[in-house]
């Protein structure tokens, strides 16, 4: 017996599947990652024969919600009903057996294997290449998805891979198909084609599709219903008839953007501290920057808004010397800095508080003092040796100043809480930024008092003439601090707003890739 999925286990004590029941009902799903509440009591109904759009910013909880449905994350509370029957989705194989398939953003194809082998991976029973190829052909022809089953995935373009992912899902004849940002790496014609395929899936075969996206136009055109999530909760549901792009944008961003509480610190000066010209870059074969242009003047705080994959992360990597450019250049204080050379940005006076501190911001197995001195050993060394005394002295001062709780200079960073680890990185980079400071998600994991402290420090640095790039998905933060806001979409700047012109609707539209 060969098949692409594992057989459905009969649900214990379940009533017969109800043909009229919604494809999926999520009831009160809650998931907590450490201190972060990713999904809070989320309920949602996905109907057959509909494309259900799931809209939200980064961290809104939409991917976590769908990962619970796909068996990749176990919910802390709540229940899932598939075709009216309560089910427990323990792992991806169970999800497949229940007729749920998900096209992920990353990591789901093996590059060295051929297309048909990738499609067969995760299936059951005898491995039959001829049958698999024939099935691929059938599905591919049926949906107009051109794939060659005998090519190695390595050799495929991004959009070809996307088609393979889709075929891999569709061939399992799922009742519910989940796609996570499927069009973010596609060209517009490719994206339109994909959406037309999805339309066929729902209208001709009456399956259900969940389309995770933050592209407003895409959802407005393709979805029959849209659920908007923010901060782990469902905010609104709209049917296609009611959908108004402006309203969606406003909902995604939030209505209560605080009015600019106080004018940003100081006035920008004329001198341009950071200039990025026509930056193009690829990461893991995906284009991440496509002609990014950016100028930040001394004393200016520029907020960088954008959704996942818009280039926010790549911008931070570029300024952390982690991303070489295919084209374009970076200048700090008028001097060109070679992108991608270890430590070059650091030496040029760029401080970066990265979004994911564990990856590039700190070393868990080194002490607090060592983490504080990591990027610049000069002031604590003499004759090539690091002076313990000075290391400790500086660390003690910083620990007091930033109120890093539970830490002595010699405490291993691993033993600090997440919030305090974040403070260590912040303290170091705020101190190191001579010309440019890049802060990504600075307030994540900090309490209100700490946030105030950090904001005061950022404002103070700007007042001293440092150029600040504030990369954040928390638009309230950006709005409070920034002189102007640039919005990234698909690796380039799509629009720019000032404090005065930044209303939720315009911001939402720009985030969704709709320049005015």
């Amino acid at each position: 017996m060969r098949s692409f999925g594992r057989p459905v286990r009969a649900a214990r004590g379940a009533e017969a599947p109800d043909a009229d029941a919604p494809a999926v009902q999520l009831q009160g799903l809650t998931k907590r990652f450490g201190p972060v509440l990713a999904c809070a009591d989320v309920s949602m109904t996905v109907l057959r024969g509909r494309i259900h759009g799931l809209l939200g910013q980064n961290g809104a909880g939409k991917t976590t919600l769908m990962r619970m449905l796909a068996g990749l994350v176990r919910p802390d509370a709540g229940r899932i009903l598939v075709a009216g029957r309560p089910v427990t989705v323990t792992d991806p194989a169970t999800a497949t057996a229940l007729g749920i398939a998900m096209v992920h953003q990353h990591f789901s194809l093996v590059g060295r294997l051929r297309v048909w082998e990738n499609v067969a991976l995760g299936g059951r029973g005898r491995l039959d290449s001829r049958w698999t190829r024939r099935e691929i052909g059938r599905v591919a022809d049926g949906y107009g998805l051109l794939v060659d089953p005998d090519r190695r995935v390595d050799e495929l373009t991004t959009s070809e891979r996307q088609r393979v992912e889709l075929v891999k899902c569709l061939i399992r004849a799922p009742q519910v198909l989940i796609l996570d940002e499927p069009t973010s790496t596609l060209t517009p014609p490719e994206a339109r084609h994909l959406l037309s395929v999805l339309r066929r899936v729902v209208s001709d075969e009456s399956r259900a599709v969940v389309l995770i996206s933050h592209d407003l136009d895409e959802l407005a055109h393709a979805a029959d219903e849209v659920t908007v999530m923010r901060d782990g909760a469902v905010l609104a549901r709209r049917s296609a008839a009611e959908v108004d792009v402006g309203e969606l944008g406003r909902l995604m961003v939030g209505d209560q953007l605080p009015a600019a509480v106080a004018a940003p610190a100081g006035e920008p000066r004329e001198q341009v501290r950071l200039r990025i010209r026509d930056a193009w870059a690829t990461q893991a074969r995906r284009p991440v920057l496509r002609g990014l242009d950016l100028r930040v003047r001394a004393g200016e705080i520029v907020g960088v808004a954008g959704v996942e994959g818009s280039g926010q992360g790549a911008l931070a990597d570029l300024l952390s010397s982690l991303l070489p450019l295919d084209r374009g250049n970076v200048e700090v204080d008028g001097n060109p800095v070679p992108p991608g050379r270890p430590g070059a940005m650091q030496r040029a006076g760029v401080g970066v508080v990265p979004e994911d501190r564990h990856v590039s911001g700190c070393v868990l197995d080194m002490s607090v003092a060592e983490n504080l001195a990591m990027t610049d050993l000069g002031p604590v060394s003499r004759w090539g040796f690091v002076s313990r005394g000075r290391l400790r002295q500086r660390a003690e001062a910083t620990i007091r100043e930033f109120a890093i709780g539970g830490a002595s200079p010699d405490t291993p960073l691993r033993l600090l809480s997440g919030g305090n680890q974040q403070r260590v990185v912040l303290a170091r980079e705020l101190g190191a930024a001579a010309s440019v400071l890049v802060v990504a998600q600075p307030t994540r994991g900090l309490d209100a008092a700490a946030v105030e402290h950090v904001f005061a420090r950022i404002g103070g640095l700007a007042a001293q003439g440092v150029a600040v790039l504030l990369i954040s998905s928390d638009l309230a933060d950006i709005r409070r601090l920034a002189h102007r806001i640039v919005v990234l979409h698909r690796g380039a700047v799509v629009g720019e707003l000032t404090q005065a012109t930044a209303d939720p609707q315009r911001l939402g539209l720009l985030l969704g890739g709709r320049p005015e």
Partner: protein
Amino acid sequence: MTDRVARMRPAVPARLVTPLAYLASFTVTMTAVALLVELTGHSAAEVALTLYQGSFADLLSLGRVLDEATALLLVATGAVVCARAGMFNIGQEGQLVIGALAGAFVALRVPAPGWLAPVLTLGAAAAGGALWAGVAAALHYWRRVNVVIGTLLLIFLASQLVSFALNRDWLLQEATPAGQNRLPQSAVLPAAAHLPRWGRYPGIEVGAGALLAIGIAAATVVLLARSQWGFRLRLLGLNPVAARRSGVRAGLVGGGALLISGGCAGLAGGVVLAGDVHRMQGGIANNLGWEGLLVALVARHHPAAVVPVAVLFGALRAGAGFLASTGVPRYLVSVLTALIVIASTLPAAFAELRLRRRPGRSRS
């Protein structure tokens, strides 16, 4: 959220868990070895006594222990430096013989005044070992060849290279009078190139190599912990991405660590050659490279812990020589060595398994 220091709370007081785990692990190991000895018809007590007599019982044996420990210490110190940079060099056995080969070549071919001869010999040995490790480093950074595989394969090339040199009279083979069997070995090194030794039979003898090894180990402890170079090296090993952001060049620091590791192994070869054997032979490495690597593993890559572990392993090697006289095959010591390594890695591995299996831990 709270900003308390996050601590684990096991049933046994936290500070006792690790020592107890190691104690249990080593007890099991020793029991296993004792059982093995008894089951093969020997006396475990007698074996223990013999090993003691062959190592720590008198000053003469102690000198022997130091000789064995010297080479192990050098190899292990290099291995620690390399491992701390996040590279795994397992080719010390090859780097050691190449070092000895280079040392022998220089000692026999380059005339030098008294004090310079041993310096040149050891310098050549270190350079030889570094060069051999450098091949693996170059292949890694240039062609992304896996360091483990690269250094491993180079061991076997090294031994053939040595065999080649020792079978050619125009290279290193000892000149013998016609009619005699020609052995694959070099001539005896000129006396000037021998490393000085202090002390006299039947008292303890200490070679200059031992002092050198201790000096290098001490310098490594200090440099790793205190110098900018050591800081960058540890940074690279612990988090390569953060290291790159902070300006650490992986090729320079990591490749340099591999060279140092090879240099230390080569130096060990030079010390064995100039301090002990005094002529180049095929079997000069005698597993010192492999066992030095194991010393570093047991010391869990702490440069200071390497010293006592090297002495322990040196004692086992010295004791092994004695063991044969009692009719117990000396290979028992290899079994003991391997089991000590396993016993020293298991507690940490089990601790990690417990951590992974603990429910409710979120990914971060």
